C-alpha cells in the first residue's frame, strides 16, 4: 500500500538503493599518498567518502570526480 499522501517517514532511506552497481570505473585511494585535504570528501556527489577517506562502494557510482580533484593523484580509477 501507498501511505496517506505518499509521505515517506523514513529519513535517508534511499540508502536501500545501492547505486554501486552503476559503476564501471572503481576509485581506489592510496592512503600513503593522501595529504588529508578533504577535496574528495567535499566533492563526492554521493557523499560516500568518510572522514577517514574510506570509500563506500555500495554507493560510489564511479564518476571519477574524487580522482580528478585529488591534488596528489592518490586516487586511481580502474575498470571493474
Amino acid at each position: 500500500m501507498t501511505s496517506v499522501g505518499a509521505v515517506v517517514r523514513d529519513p535517508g532511506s534511499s540508502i536501500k538503493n545501492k547505486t554501486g552497481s552503476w559503476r564501471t570505473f572503481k576509485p581506489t585511494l592510496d592512503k600513503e599518498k593522501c595529504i588529508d585535504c578533504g577535496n574528495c570528501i567535499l566533492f563526492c556527489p554521493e557523499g560516500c567518502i568518510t572522514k577517514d577517506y574510506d570509500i563506500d562502494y555500495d554507493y560510489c557510482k564511479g564518476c571519477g570526480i574524487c580522482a580528478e580533484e585529488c591534488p596528489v593523484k592518490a586516487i586511481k580509477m580502474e575498470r571493474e
Partner: protein
Amino acid sequence: MEIPEKELLAPGHRACAGCGATIGVRLALKMLGENTVAVSATGCLEVITTPYPETSWKIPWIHVAFENAGAVASGVERALKAQGKDDVTVVAFAGDGGTADIGLQSLSGAMERGHNLIYICYDNEAYMNTGVQRSGATPYGASTTTTPHGEESFGENKPKKNIPMIMAAHGVPYVATASISYPEDFMMKVQKAKEVEGPAYIHLHQPCTTGWGYDSSKTIELGRLAVETGSWLLYEIVEGEFKITYRPLERKPVNVYLEAQKRFKHLADAEKEKIQNYVDEICAELKI
C-alpha cells in the same frame, strides 16, 4: 572554515554519476544543519531524491510543484512562525527553470514579502530533468534540444537572464552567486544567508555532465573553468552593497571553458569571439 561532517542528504539517490546538483545540496545542508525544512521545486533534485517509498532527505522536506517553490516556502515559513518555531531555517531549492522561468513570479512574491527564508537556485543552465531544453538561464551559444545548432542556428541566441540582479532589485538583505567548485566560498555564503533576517537568495552555478556534454569526472573542473574564465562571477550583495568574493589570479580565455563541453562544440570562431567580448566587457566593469 569549520565544515560540519554530518551528511544530511543520504546516498542511494538516482542522480547521474558526477551530478553537480547533489554536491551543491550536500554542501548547503552541511551549513544549514538539521534544524532546517527544505522545499523543492519540481526538477532533477526532487525526482532523484524522493523515489517513493524512499527519500534521501534526512531533514523534513516538501515538494508541491514546479513553479511555486517561493510560495510553498512562504507558507511553510509562516506556519512555523505561527507555531513559535522561529529557530527553524527554511530553505528552497529550485533549478534554473523553476527559478528563472516558470517560478519567477512565485519567487518574486516571496522575496518582496520579506519572508525569513533562503532560496538556492541550482543552475545547470537548461531543463535537465526533461532532457536538456533551453531555459532563461541557458547561455549564449549553447546547443540544447530546443535551441539545437544547425544550418540556420548556432544554438541559444540570447544571453543568460540575470536572476541574481533581479533578486537584488527586490532589495532583499542578501544575494549571492556561488559555484560548487568553490565550496568554501559557497558554504560561507550559505552561512551568511542563514544568519540574515529576511529573504536570502543564492544562485549556485552547477555543471551538468549530461546536459553540457563532458566526462562525469570533470564536474568540478568545469565549474572552476567557468569562474576562471570570467564566464561565471562570484559575488555577494549584502544590504545592497556589491562585493566580488573571488578574483581569478589570471583570467583564462573563454575558449578553454567552451571547448571542454559538447554544447558549445559547434560554435564558429565568430560566435566564440562574441562570447569572449561579452565576458571581457563585464569583467572590465568589475575589474576581474
